[in-house]
């Protein structure tokens, strides 16, 4: 055990030190090779031009390399796979996509996914913002935050049990072990098999993701909220704005960028959502979504072509968000 701890500590140190070394080392090296400290040297300007051109790439280097190897390369691989048949033995062109268009499961997933996209990011961002703002103003805010955050920290298997104990359905008359049905029965209604009611079950699944992602939104937005210059809020107080007005007119616009980021991130989580649906319904009762459909074709159907085609569709769905981000980045660049 101690042996284990020591090895672990050493590996950790090596890992961390290695990456520090890279950044410090390369920067030092760059300055060494192209010195321009004393502005007088004839090459100074040239060297500076070189270093300014090179340094961003030094900073970006490891990130780009990692992204390239771990994400971009697989993306192209996926693109390739999507043009092949199930076991990648024959090129089939756009057959897989053509099949997708006609597939009822795909249509159902797309439809459900759009519902998810409408509801989850909005709701999670909204609740996250509420939690971030409101907890800032009470003395037990940190405790409240931790509690709202907790769902994020619970492993996925844990979360699925949790929601089993919420949505569980027992026949009318027998004892309910799902709290939702217990409540419904207590109110005098019939218990429902929540996750088995088509269309509505989507919303019950969404609730789970909202429940989880609110913590994410809260933490990120909370960091952003604290960056708002307090004087602007003070100015608004003096300008006669009430708390709601301060919130909507002063705070929200100033963290709008972050809200967009959170919203985008959750949107992307939704596009990829898979485990909730997988664990709760596996797409049955018309609750299929793209992420699960893809998983299904990849690892149940062993049809890498179709799985990849669905993955590509998911990636294509994100383009509007990419475009809006390009816009925003460009606008920012103009600013400074």
């Amino acid at each position, binding site marked *: 055990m101690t042996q284990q701890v020591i090895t672990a500590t050493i590996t950790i140190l090596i890992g961390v030190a290695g990456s520090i070394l890279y950044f410090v080392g390369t920067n030092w090296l760059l300055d060494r090779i192209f010195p321009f400290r004393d502005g007088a040297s004839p090459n100074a300007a040239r060297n500076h031009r070189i270093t300014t051109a090179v340094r961003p790439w030094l900073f970006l280097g490891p990130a780009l390399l990692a992204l390239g190897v771990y994400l971009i390369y697989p993306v192209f691989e996926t693109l390739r796979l999507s043009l092949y048949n199930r076991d990648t033995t024959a090129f089939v062109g756009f057959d897989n996509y053509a099949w997708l268009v006609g597939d009822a499961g795909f249509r159902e997933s797309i439809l459900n996914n759009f519902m998810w996209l409408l509801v989850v990011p909005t709701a999670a961002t909204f609740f996250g913002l509420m939690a971030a703002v409101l907890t800032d103003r009470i003395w037990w805010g940190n405790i409240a935050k931790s509690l709202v955050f907790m769902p994020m920290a619970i492993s996925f*298997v844990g979360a699925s049990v949790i929601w089993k104990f919420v949505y569980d359905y027992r026949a009318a008359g027998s004892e309910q072990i799902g709290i939702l049905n217990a409540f419904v029965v207590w109110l005098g209604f019939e218990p429902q098999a929540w996750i088995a009611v088509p269309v509505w079950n989507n919303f019950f699944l969404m609730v789970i993701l909202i429940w989880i992602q609110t913590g994410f939104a809260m933490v990120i937005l909370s960091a952003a909220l604290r960056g708002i210059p307090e004087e602007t809020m003070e100015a608004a107080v003096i300008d006669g704005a009430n708390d709601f007005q301060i919130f909507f007119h002063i705070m929200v616009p100033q963290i709008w960028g972050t809200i967009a980021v959170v919203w985008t991130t959750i949107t992307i989580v939704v596009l990829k959502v898979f485990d909730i649906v997988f664990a709760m319904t596996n797409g049955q009762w018309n609750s299929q979504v793209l992420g699960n459909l893809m998983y299904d074709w990849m690892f149940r159907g062993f049809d890498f072509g179709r799985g990849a085609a669905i993955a590509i569709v998911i990636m294509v769905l994100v383009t509007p968000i990419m475009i809006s981000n390009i816009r925003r980045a460009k606008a920012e660049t103009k600013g400074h």
Partner: protein
Amino acid sequence: ELMFKPGEDARFNWKSFEDFKAANAALKGQTLTMFGPWRGEDEKLVQSILDYFRDATGVDVKYSSSENYEQQIVIDAQAGSPPDVAILPQPGLIADLASKGFLTALGDDTQKWLGENYAAGASWVSLGSYKGKDGAAALYAFPYKIDLKSLVWYSPENFKDAGYAIPQTMEELKALTEKIVADGGKPWCIGLGSGGATGWPATDWVEDFMLRTQSPDIYDKWVTNEVKFSDPAVVGAIEEFGWFARNDKFVDGGAAAVGTTDFRDSPKGLFASPPKCYMHRQASFIPSFFPEGTKLGEDADFFYLPAYAGKDLGKPVLGAGTLAMIMKDTPASRAFIEFLKTPIAHEVWMAQSGFLTPLKTVNVEAYGNPALKKQGEILLGATTFRFDGSDLMPGKIGAGAFWTGMVDYAGGKAAADVGADIQKAWDAIK
């Protein structure tokens, strides 16, 4: 530390162990990585078997499992780092691995051995044979550890209290079902819920009824889709299941609860006070979900899901099980397959729990409890043995469309529509 000291217990065939030990001494120091579906309690059991292999060969066996083992084995195989030996319960998945060339054929000797030493050997051989990358069929997987599916679990004392007798035919079973209703009870607990795999328990029902309403031949054709899902034979089997599951009076919680009740929770109704149901059809593994302290054979027992008296189809038995295969052809992997051929590799597990084997050379007295022994006898006495059909079907169907279809059916969809839907899905992957 070996579970049973070699040579001490007469129930065990120690000679086979000693022979194996003698033949494989040269492997010492090698390692064998192994990947299987067993976790938790089951892992302890498999480790107790592996201990004997370790002891006999000196091979360092590294067993691992995971919740996503199906996914992981695909990833590992595709990526080129598979385990030496894999043990999987899905023939469909194995077929896929074989067709992509990830498996090593076990050879004619093994094939012959299986045919000779397993009861109903031919069906086991065909179960383990798949088309390889070259398109030629060969034995790739070695069946080891079988589960029986066609079992109905009940509480003998409840039966006794109510004065019910064990039905011997399907007709009797249906009559009993109706009698229980007439007595004011609920006959069945059925739950199809299983998280991501919701629906699978229903496939077992359908398979059981396929075997009881159709000839094994049709069953085999159904599994390969020569008989379509929309075929009246299949639709009929589904409807037989529906006779039980879609009647609010027959099922605890009513038909609506069938789809969402977790299969792991559903047997608990047998032991409630008053009982929520009297019967539960499930495979041989289910006792691990009985309340703690339930004594098999006393508090709970099972009977064979009977066949129709009106149909002359004998006593068909549905089963499932795991198959071992070599993913990396090393001496140790080969030796492991050899090890599985020794009676001791079966007996040690038999003597503990949850293990059935069709191996004829084992001592049935080694079964750890009467219930197991009884199951073993059912297995050995089967006139027809068929492997779980959904596991044989392509994953997209057997672990996809079929499940979904069953859930839809439990939810009220017409059997014919369900059959057509599943068939459509099957057509889509052809």
